[in-house]
């Protein structure tokens, strides 16, 4: 909710999001007192629009996404021990290797979610400005409330149960390909840990809407680092140097070379990820929110444009020449002028003129 307070000599404005209240000061002829007291400052009122509708909205969206994913990942990680308690005499024996527990939240899963929190965009900045209604979920606290937290918890609990019980059922009677014993605690730990890392990485992949280079690097890099550290820690070398600290010697080499273990990991990963994907897909198809509609339209617009009426009217009307000169002098924050032929075409097609402006602006800029 944005509100402006007018005072005698300075104008203050405050922007609130569900997670953080920030102070914004606008420097003006009257002085810089607001700038001194604020978190962010700028010089013109029109920048407030971009601050609220683009960055404020993105900030809320990213924060909610981040929180949702973080709770989900930690529920999935921790509650496996709850299920294991029934099978280890409630002795609080950990399922995972101690090193995995230490490194999971620091190394294996921290960077992808950091990249998502920094860069993710659900809709582009132009669309955010064109559709101010997209700001409403922030005002109404729709993206992360008690209901969303409950759903996130539910997904975390069900993921943890699948992560435990599928390997449990498989390992009850499993032996290695050479007949020797494999259902031991260390192999069980490595299998569940690997499945967990794969599941949460796939989940962050599905949750990230805006894949920059940094996102790619962090996501795939975390997965590679997991396997690298796994094999390094369970090698003979580390066991030789720090014998008591690295008891999982040889586990990764023995169990990740077994086809049956990889089949267990594949099954667990698919069964954990697919229901969530199915539910979110159905939600978008059957009950699309404004965000979903804007995303779909911007995704389809390049395709849709080619199936609209061609360039004939544009060229014969001679408007494209005027269009290019007008757009080159346009201000950065402003929108390109809409010519009448476009409006006519769009009214015929019953599409939204604001969206198509962005698309028709591109071919019209050719000189």
């Amino acid at each position, binding site marked *: 909710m944005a509100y402006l307070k007018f005072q005698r000599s300075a104008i203050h404005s405050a922007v609130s999001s569900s997670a953080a209240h920030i102070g914004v000061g606008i*420097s003006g002829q009257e002085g*810089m007192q607001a*700038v001194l007291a604020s978190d962010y*400052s*700028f*010089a*013109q009122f029109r920048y407030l629009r971009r601050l609220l509708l683009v960055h404020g909205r993105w900030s809320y969206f990213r924060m909610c996404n981040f929180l949702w994913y973080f709770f989900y990942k930690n529920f999935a990680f921790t509650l496996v021990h709850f299920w294991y308690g029934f*099978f*280890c*005499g409630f*002795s609080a024996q*950990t399922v995972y290797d101690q090193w995995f527990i230490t490194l999971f939240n620091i190394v294996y899963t921290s960077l992808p979610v950091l990249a998502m929190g920094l*860069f993710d965009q659900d809709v582009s900045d132009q669309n955010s400005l*064109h559709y101010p209604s997209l700001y409403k979920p922030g005002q109404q606290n729709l993206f992360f409330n008690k209901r969303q937290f409950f759903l996130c918890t539910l997904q975390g609990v069900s993921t943890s149960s699948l992560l435990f019980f599928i390997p*449990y*059922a*498989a390992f*009850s*009677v499993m*032996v290695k390909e*050479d*007949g*020797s*014993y494999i*259902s*031991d*605690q*260390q192999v*069980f730990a490595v299998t569940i840990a690997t499945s967990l890392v794969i599941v949460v990485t796939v989940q962050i992949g599905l949750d990230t809407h805006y*894949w920059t*280079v940094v*996102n790619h690097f962090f996501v795939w890099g975390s997965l590679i680092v997991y396997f690298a550290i796994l094999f390094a820690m369970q090698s003979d070398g580390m066991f030789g140097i720090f014998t*008591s600290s690295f*008891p999982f*010697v*040889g586990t990764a*080499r023995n169990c990740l070379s*077994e*086809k*049956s273990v990889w089949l267990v990991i594949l*099954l667990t990963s*698919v*069964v954990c990820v*697919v229901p969530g*994907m199915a539910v979110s*897909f159905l939600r*978008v*198809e*059957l009950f699309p929110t*404004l965000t979903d*509609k804007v*995303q779909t*339209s911007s*995704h389809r617009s390049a395709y849709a444009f080619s199936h609209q009426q061609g360039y004939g009217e544009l060229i014969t009307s001679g408007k494209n020449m005027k269009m290019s000169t007008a757009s080159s002098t346009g201000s950065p924050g402003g*929108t390109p002028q809409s010519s009448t032929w476009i409006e006519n075409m769009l009214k015929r097609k*019953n*599409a*939204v*003129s604001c969206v198509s*402006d962005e698309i028709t602006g591109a071919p019209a800029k050719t000189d």
Partner: protein
Amino acid sequence: MMASSYTAKEEDGHITVSGPGALRSRKPENTAFKQQRLPAWQPILTAGTVLPAFFIIGLLFIPIGIGLFIDYTGVDASSPCFNCSQSFSWNSSRPFVFDPQSNVYVYYGLSNFYQNHRRYVKSRDDSQLNGDPKSLMVRRNTLELFYNDPNGTKVQILLNTTGIAWWTDKHPINWRRPVFDLDADEGNNGFINEDFIVWMRTAALPTFRKLYRIINKKSGMVPTLPRGNYSLEVVYNYPVRSFEGRKRMILSTISWMGGKNPFLGIAYITVAPCASSWASCCCSSTTSVETETTTLTFPTELLTCP
């Protein structure tokens, strides 16, 4: 004091600071990274991506599941559970109904034995196991397998005592004296006794089976264990009645996947039609949604561009 550095020409948001040296601008750099303009791939879940993915999962999992399930060469012949405490040897006689021509693996199984208890796992000291000798008392049953000829003579089957532990567990260790006589063979005594290594590999679950012996296959087409009656003599060393444990002896062959494991096959076969049927339901429902309308309806406020 800040107002003194402000100029009327600063119209586009430059807030400058007059520190030591020239005026510095506080405006963030106009790079793609800092202005949130990095080029990006923006995937969205559409019917065109999700439904084929589900169909692929269905198609891929069915042959895997069938392959795992019908892989029946791993035959499991368990002896009935025994937990006698009266006598310390036990005979079991049962007929063998198959002629395996590969290695036969002998497992001992335990139920309700919490080797995964935290105190036990914590008490395990790998540096001692690695070389520091320490006296331990490990009790375990020994068993021998005899073959009852149709003639009635008992022939002892040779049981291979090595090759049952993981190769990474067998370290070249530095022991000064044997811990206890697990084996007459000096190469398989003390901490490198493979039975001991197998036992020390902590089980994950309270019901487990561990490899005890291997019966190597014979050359040619001679079955490893010919059809007939076999008897199993067990010397019962470790009582399990006190914690209601049960013991089993399992004879099994293995296949390319390891032992017989119906769970994985059944699980794959279950997931595949679920995914495929969900995808086909969605296929039919989304095509009906799309035929209704091809336009997007937006709130009226958006139709006027600013």
